């Protein structure tokens, strides 16, 4: 697999994303290369409609984006329902749509285990963080983490945490975009990357958070509608009996196994394997560690946390997580049905298969081929356009969050010591947006042929090990100090990156060292790096006897009262 990158590995490969892969997953990743397809005009025209529509919204949003508050948080005027959809739009990436449905097609039940991991972080966000974030923060999660601490060190840490997470996430999205669009639209890789970069820059630059939010809402609506239609058509064809659908899928998998020369008993067992857990989780440590990265990573993703500042108050913040959880949970149920639909409609239809029985265009084409099977060429074009829109929406959210870390945390707070002029701060965020756009396109092109499948899981692991512990401890633990938060946070950041580098998915799969040579044998570093982060924060806070530490601890009660009552919180449009 060294240096070799097919469509699956960059954005989507669950095999390496999980590391715990096993044979079935690795096979999934080898199903095909991203070969350039014939230019698909239906898909391109539908995508053009989406682009024109969103550009009009951007124009409208641009007229409303005057202050830094408008730029970062849409003036705090988004409702809970809208924000919930936008969060779902931020979170349901092309990886989860195409990757999870493909994973279900390959492994059945195992795909479900994976999507559950992505969902269970949301209640934790709701119970422990959502309203406190809203009551303490203004534009970025650093506002919350640094609330009672010395600004400069905590902001520098938070900006580092944000930029590192955003960078890994962005690379994964850009490379995925290039591969996917080459495949779906028949465009050259670099053209696709440049289009994504340019459109994302336009949305963020002119429309700020307002345009980004609406792009995410529209994309979430389109994706949910398209996926609902596909799941409906699949269930409809089985008379709405899941048992009939499962039975057919098992029959088809059994048939494939016996065609591959398996004895009848073995083939039946292999066919039935999709109904229970398989090779997804090998050892309990990897299972728990990976579960922690997904669960707590969600609560530390800067572009998600930032969305809590776009609503007017704590009530709306809570409503938005409930809506987000509902939509995302519903979406994962749909992808599960779509995956089984792909087994029954796509794996049996030679139109979608290559000579070796693999999917045309690669393993992650399951949902795309199913769209063709249930809705014809027009619906295929629609789903392809939605997949492109999905990447755009996620990338725009990431860029906005990276830009605010630079302009609000570094420029306004660290360099200008909180005395930055609003117009100047806005200009810095726009300049940063352009810079990030160019960097993202450059990285997207540079990483075209690299195996970067580990990057999304790395982003989650860093978010869980650096951002989340600092946020949680600063908000809930009164003895936490500046020194503890900064040292512990950086320890969590460094250990999650280092342990990922020496784990099999990077050391062996990306850097090409021999098998079993990785120093760190587990799929995810989170169990260890989160522990290092939390213990670091605790230890260096407890040992901290400085004058600043006394001040940090003394500030806790004020912070607590504000975080719990909202007194003094930045108002809807007044910030």
């Amino acid at each position, binding site marked *: 697999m060294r240096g070799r990158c097919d469509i699956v590995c960059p954005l989507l490969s669950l095999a390496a994303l999980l590391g715990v892969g096993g044979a079935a997953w690795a096979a999934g990743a080898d199903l095909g290369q991203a070969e350039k397809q014939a230019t698909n005009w239906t898909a391109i025209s539908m995508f053009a409609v989406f682009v024109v529509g969103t550009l009009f919204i951007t124009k409208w949003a641009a007229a409303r984006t005057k202050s830094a508050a408008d730029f970062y948080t849409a003036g705090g005027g988004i409702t809970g329902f809208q924000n919930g959809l936008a969060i779902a739009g931020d979170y349901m990436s092309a990886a989860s749509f195409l990757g999870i449905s493909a994973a279900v097609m390959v492994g059945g*039940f195992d795909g*479900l*285990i994976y*999507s*559950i991991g992505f*969902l*269970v972080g*949301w*209640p*934790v966000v*709701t*119970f*422990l963080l959502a*309203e406190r974030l809203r009551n303490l923060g203004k534009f970025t999660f650093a506002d919350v983490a640094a609330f009672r601490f010395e600004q400069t060190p905590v902001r520098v840490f938070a900006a580092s945490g944000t930029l590192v997470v955003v960078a890994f996430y962005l690379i994964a999205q850009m490379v995925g975009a290039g591969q996917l669009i080459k495949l779906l639209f028949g465009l050259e890789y670099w053209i696709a990357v440049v289009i994504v970069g340019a459109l994302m820059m336009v949305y963020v630059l002119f429309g700020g958070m307002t345009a980004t939010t609406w792009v995410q809402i529209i994309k979430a609506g389109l994706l949910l509608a398209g996926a609902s239609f596909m799941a409906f058509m699949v269930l409809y064809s089985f008379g709405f009996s*899941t*048992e009939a659908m*499962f*039975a057919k899928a*098992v029959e088809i998998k059994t048939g494939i196994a016996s065609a591959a020369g398996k004895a009848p008993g073995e083939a039946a067992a292999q066919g*039935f*394997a999709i*109904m*229970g*857990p*398989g090779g*997804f*989780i090998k*050892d*309990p440590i990897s*299972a*728990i560690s990976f*579960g922690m990265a997904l*669960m707590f990573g969600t609560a530390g993703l800067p572009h998600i946390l930032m969305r809590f500042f776009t609503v007017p108050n*704590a*009530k709306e913040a*809570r*409503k938005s*997580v*409930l809506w987000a*959880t*509902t939509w995302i*949970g519903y979406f*994962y*149920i749909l992808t*599960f049905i779509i995956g089984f639909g792909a087994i029954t409609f796509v794996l049996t239809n030679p139109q979608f298969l290559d000579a070796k029985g693999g999917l045309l265009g690669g393993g992650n084409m399951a949902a795309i081929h199913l769209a063709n099977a249930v809705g014809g060429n027009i619906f295929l074009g629609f789903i392809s356009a939605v997949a492109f829109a999905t990447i755009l929406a996620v990338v725009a959210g990431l860029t906005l969050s990276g830009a605010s870390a630079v302009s609000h945390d570094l420029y306004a707070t660290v360099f200008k010591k909180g005395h930055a002029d609003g117009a100047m701060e806005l200009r810095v965020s726009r300049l940063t947006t352009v810079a990030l756009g160019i960097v993202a396109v450059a990285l997207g092109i540079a990483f075209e042929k690299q195996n970067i499948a580990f990057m999304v899981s790395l982003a989650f692991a860093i978010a869980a090990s650096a951002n989340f512990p600092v946020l949680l401890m600063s908000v809930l633990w009164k003895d936490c100090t500046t020194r503890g938060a900064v040292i512990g946070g950086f320890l969590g950041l460094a250990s999650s990156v280092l342990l990922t580098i020496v784990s099999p998915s990077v050391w062996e799969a990306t850097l090409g060292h021999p098998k079993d040579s990785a120093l760190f044998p587990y799929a995810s570093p989170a169990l260890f790096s989160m522990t290092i982060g939390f213990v670091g924060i605790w230890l260096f806070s407890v040992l901290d006897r400085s004058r600043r530490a006394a001040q940090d601890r003394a500030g806790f*009660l*004020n912070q607590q*009262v*504000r975080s*719990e*009552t*909202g*007194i*003094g919180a930045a108002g809807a449009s007044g910030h």
Partner: protein
Amino acid sequence: MDTDLTTRILNNPKYQELRAKRWAFGWWLTLAMLVVYYGFILLVAFNKPFLATRLGEGVTTIGMPIGLGVIVFTIVITGLYVRRANSEFDALTEQIVKGALK
């Protein structure tokens, strides 16, 4: 926020009530979520055959309702918290804020 205001709120029995109720509720629900999710993961790690047990005559296994159950549970538990927080807790908060700022 000035320290007088903070002290006043901290000494308000209503605030203490809100805090106690919300902490208990929030942490119990967090614990429930952790137990359900890691229970599921440990089941996957240690008892795969159980999840692959057939329900009745067909091919549907017990893992399917359990897996979907975890998704539904996640949504329901979030809804429970939000409902109580947006009614009972917010009403209490409003009383506290009014009392403190008058």
